């Protein structure tokens, strides 16, 4: 037998060896064990969050208070960390004890892959009632029966409207139905002498500012996913209602006119925001816009209201999302991590303090009604939207935002008039979404 290894075989062996090395670098899952009730927690714990500057300082204050209340735990805070850094760190086996993210899109993957541990055992041991958490926030913090995240303040979306422009158009209150929204939008729209758009009542393009499909879905109660995690955009008739309504309004303006108008508008997060400048009379936005308006357009007279609904019976809601916090599977001190998470997400006084400084909505029943919460009438409107049963969120998925962004592509084609047959188009979108959702898993 010839012992010489042929060159081709050598390459194969080298490649196989390289693959083994690569494969070995990926950590294996770890068994989860938690301490007995009453065990004293101590040691150091690391928290990564995405906040910067003023907001980061607010976190530091609360963490300091936590340390005072738990003298045996020391917290290291790392500000300005984003999701991809955290994912890589966890994948490499060096995840922070606690991660705080702005994106509910990661929950599906982090739960299903076990990157964040299931918190159920901790909740049960410490008798923490999850029902004190707002129902919508409960939805976006669990996936596949695993509660691997806790909500850390929330955002609610509603409709901002310009009171001055409303008065000029002879309109009193905000529109409550989509039909009214169209009607008001037409009345509020002003054209230049050359026929171009000067002021737009409501700019219905799905890729404008916060008009994403997700934020408008509550207007018609549209569902994203079926119970088995497949796309529902083709089967839920609510989407058709929303899209038909939207296209009618787009066509009233003329797609080209809207495109030209919109191209001249300022950036959403700059002082040139079209709503703040009075270029757009009604706009979908979240409660954080209140702080922007106060800062960038203090003289603007505006009102806030829930998203208009297709059916008046479903009025009152809006899109809800929020920050989430969880424990890495390779946390060095999961017990202390849990102690801090519990403090941040279930201690009502802490939540009120955070809500007041970050201007986001508190998530527990008691903090919601706490008299110490600084809530003016506008903020209160967003709190009502947040608590309304017609509000909804984007469901977690193991492929993250793939289903929303794939549909968003369909929506931009739709409004541009590239989709001739809506039923066929939606059925096709279903197929594409299902296909993209399986790319990763």
């Amino acid at each position, binding site marked *: 037998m010839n012992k010489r290894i042929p060159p081709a075989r050598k390459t194969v062996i080298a*490649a196989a060896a*390289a*693959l083994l*090395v*690569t*494969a070995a670098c*990926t950590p*294996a*899952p770890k068994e989860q064990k938690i301490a007995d009730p009453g065990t004293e927690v101590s040691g150091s714990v690391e928290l990564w969050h*995405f906040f910067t500057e003023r907001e980061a300082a607010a976190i530091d204050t609360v963490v300091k208070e936590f340390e005072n209340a738990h003298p045996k735990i020391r917290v290291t805070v790392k500000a300005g960390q*984003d*999701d*991809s850094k955290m*994912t*890589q760190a*966890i*994948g490499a086996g060096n995840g922070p004890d606690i991660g705080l*993210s*702005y*994106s509910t*899109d*990661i929950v599906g*993957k*982090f739960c299903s*892959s*076990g*990157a964040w541990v299931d918190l159920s055992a901790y909740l049960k041991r410490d008798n923490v009632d999850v029902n004190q958490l707002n129902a919508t926030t409960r939805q976006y913090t669990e996936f596949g029966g695993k509660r691997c995240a806790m909500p850390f303040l929330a955002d609610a979306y509603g409709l901002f409207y310009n009171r001055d422009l409303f008065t000029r158009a002879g309109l009193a209150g905000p529109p409550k139905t989509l039909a009214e929204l169209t009607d008001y939008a037409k009345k509020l729209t002003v054209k230049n002498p050359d026929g171009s758009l000067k002021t737009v009542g409501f700019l219905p393009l799905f*890729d*404008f*500012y916060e008009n*994403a499909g997700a934020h408008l879905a509550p207007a018609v109660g549209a569902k994203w996913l079926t119970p088995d995690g497949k796309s529902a955009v083709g089967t839920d008739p609510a989407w058709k209602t929303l899209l038909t309504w939207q296209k009618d309004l787009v066509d009233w303006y003329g797609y080209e006119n809207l*495109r*030209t108008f*919109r*191209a*001249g*508008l*300022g*950036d*959403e*997060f700059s002082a040139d925001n*079209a709503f703040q400048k009075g270029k757009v009379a009604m706009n979908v936005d979240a409660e954080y816009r209140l702080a922007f308006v106060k800062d960038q357009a203090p003289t603007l007279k505006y009102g806030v209201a829930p998203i208009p609904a297709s059916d008046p019976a479903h009025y009152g809601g809006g899109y809800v999302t929020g920050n989430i916090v969880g424990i890495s599977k390779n946390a060095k001190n999961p017990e202390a991590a849990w102690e801090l998470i519990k403090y941040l997400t279930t201690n009502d006084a802490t939540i009120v303090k955070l809500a007041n400084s970050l201007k986001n909505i508190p998530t527990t029943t008691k903090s919601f009604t706490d008299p110490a919460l600084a809530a003016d009438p506008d903020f209160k409107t967003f709190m009502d939207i947040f608590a309304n049963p017609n509000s909804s969120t984007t469901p977690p998925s*193991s*492929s*993250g*935002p*793939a289903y929303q*962004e*794939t549909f*968003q*592509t369909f929506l*931009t084609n739709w409004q*541009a008039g590239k989709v001739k047959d809506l039923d066929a188009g939606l059925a096709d979108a279903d197929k*594409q979404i299902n*296909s*993209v*959702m399986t*790319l*990763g*898993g």
Partner: protein
Amino acid sequence: MRLRRNLTTLSFLAPALVGIAVFFLYPLLSAVYFSFTKFDLLTVPRWVGPANYRRMAEDPFLLQSIRNTLWMVVVFVPVRIIGAIGLSMLLTQLKRGAGFFRTIFYLPALAPPVAATIAFVYLLKPGTGPVNTALGHLGIEGPLWFNSPEWAKPSLVLLGLWGIGDIMIIFLAAVLGVSPSLYEAASLDGANAWHRFRYVTLPSIRPVILFAAVTGVIYTLQYFDQAAVAGSIASGQAVTGGGISTSFGYPEGSTFTYPLWLYTAGFRYNALGYANAMAVALFVVALAVTVILLRRSKAFSGEDQ
């Protein structure tokens, strides 16, 4: 003795070899391995054979991104080369102020791509941008530039032309390096300016053109920053962090290049196996184009440059 000499050579080469192994070969082999797996950075990769490559055949987003990237390769690379040659020819003709103009035309290449793109989008912004205002004074109604699916890619080409300094400087050196005696000889033979360019300059700078073509194709195949930033800024949703991919390709997918889809699939949709397959395919295409260009050029010029 010979062994010793080999070892000495090897020891001198070692830093480079280690660098190539760690930063090129290892990542490349890993990418090839991961391209045959389902992989999300968080769990153990699962071997799926050629499934990712098969998926590429029926992926509409991939098709769209390939179309956009091919458009850029076909238009941007030649335009860049022609622009750089033209500019360097002009600069060699200057009698006075050559240094000044060389500096001026080179400077944009030093601007960070992200900053340059943001500035460009604002300059070309319809409604408020100075370019369309100036065009308006001339009675021309400017296009929507980065806000129009027809004009978004040409606008990116304009941006690339503005930052042409890096290859212009190489062409300038090449044009200046052409021996004056050749021009003299040509003139004596009655060649006019076009003839001198066509039969003297062009053949002399052919290796540089080849270099610019090869690097240009590779650069354009990896076109990411400018497309991502232009889409985000033009859409008016300049968000940071995780939400960035929502504005990728704006408007109407016209700036959705291959690397943008690769990034989105990998880091947004957790399909890193698929993203690796796309990366490997991109590597193969870039290599193939390079080999073809080099081969053709040799056959074309009949010399081994």
